[in-house]
């Protein structure tokens, strides 16, 4: 029912949007105030990218839906983000004293997504869709900065104390099976590359980062999540309940 170009743009848009939602959950809770600023600033960039991409997806659909309708008024199955970004900020229960936030997990995921977005946006500079190419050119500068920031933390914590390294290694074990999905979605001729096209480079860069951070890669997993096809984890409904609350409770509400 969807134009494949719209689906392609939505997969990217929703991954930015949901990733930003999780980063934003750190607002007021980060370990230090500088990192509070960093996490929310990166979330802001990603929401900006999602806004542009959702607006474009709405235009491709041609049914009059704007960024807000797409962000807030779809059902779970219509979101096309990868499952990796919808996982909670901690694998532990929120009642264990962590408040449901694990900085190790957030940091690793942030680095993984930033490297991936950087590689995809680089390729999208050559898109035959001029709007998508323009969004990519702007976004590329932003995610490059995110990648630098997140990678520095990965090295600092991985190659840190015995405690920080153990926590990073544990977080990596949680995330690793979900990384497979970053290479799952098909491309659209001329418009955007298959995600598989960035896999080799992503794995090379990730390998270098892990080495620098003295972290060892877990064994590859057979898990193949399908968020990009609309099949989400049990966490997605809870995330949307928070994210969509205002528009559901007060339809059409504006600032």
């Amino acid at each position: 029912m969807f134009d494949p170009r719209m689906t392609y743009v939505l997969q990217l848009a929703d991954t930015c949007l949901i990733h930003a939602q999780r980063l934003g959950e750190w607002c007021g809770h980060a370990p230090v105030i500088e990192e509070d600023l960093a996490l929310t600033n990166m979330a802001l960039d990603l929401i900006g990218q999602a806004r542009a991409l959702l607006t474009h997806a709405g235009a491709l659909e041609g049914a009059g839906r704007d960024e807000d309708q797409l962000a807030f008024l779809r059902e779970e199955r219509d979101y096309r983000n990868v499952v990796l970004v919808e996982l909670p900020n901690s694998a532990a229960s929120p009642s264990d004293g962590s408040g449901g936030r694990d900085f190790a997990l957030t940091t690793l995921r942030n680095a993984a997504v930033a490297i991936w977005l950087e590689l995809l946006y680089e390729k999208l500079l050559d898109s035959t869709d001029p709007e998508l190419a323009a969004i990519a050119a702007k976004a590329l500068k932003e995610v490059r900065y995110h990648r630098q920031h997140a990678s520095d933390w990965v090295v600092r914590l991985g190659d840190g104390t015995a405690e920080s390294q153990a926590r990073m290694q544990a977080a990596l074990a949680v995330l690793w099976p979900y990384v497979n999905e970053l290479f799952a979605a098909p491309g659209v001729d001329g418009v955007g590359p298959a995600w598989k096209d960035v896999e080799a480079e992503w794995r090379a860069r990730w390998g270098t980062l892990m080495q620098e951070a003295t972290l060892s890669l877990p064994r590859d997993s057979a898990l193949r999540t399908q968020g990009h096809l609309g099949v989400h984890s049990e966490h997605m409904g809870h995330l949307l309940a928070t994210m969509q609350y205002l528009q559901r409770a007060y339809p059409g509400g504006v600032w």
Partner: protein
Amino acid sequence: MNLEAARARLASLPDPEIPAVTLVELGIVRDLRETGAGLEVVLTPTYSGCPATELIADDVRAALAEFGPVTVTLQRSPAWTTDWISAEGREKLQRYGIVPPQCSAEQAIRFVPQLRCPRCAGGRTEQLSRFGSTPCKSTWRCIECGEPFEYFKSI
């Protein structure tokens, strides 16, 4: 319609987040032209998620309303870069206490800035955070005078 007067009015508009510099000096205003329907102003957003973008568009519309109907167009390509900040804009930022970009956008990927404190000109400074109070800045501290300051990141 007096395009020159409109241009002068537009050039006087401060950035809402950093009022020490104007929108034109920051390089956000890409064009002002007359169309059959009135004036068209072309703006380029600085960061994808910059919350000031809509406020800036509103400011421009309000400021030019006296010249007739105004359309504001957001143009994403070519992407805004700090290379477009004018020399005058850089000087004003510096005087306001924000160190202007120290390298071109091209060099920014590998560049680690060595900044001089904009208050005491001391050379021993350290970055406190890669991010700051707005998307375009990072947070620094002068070790010599102890004062914090901001740096306008090159992108």
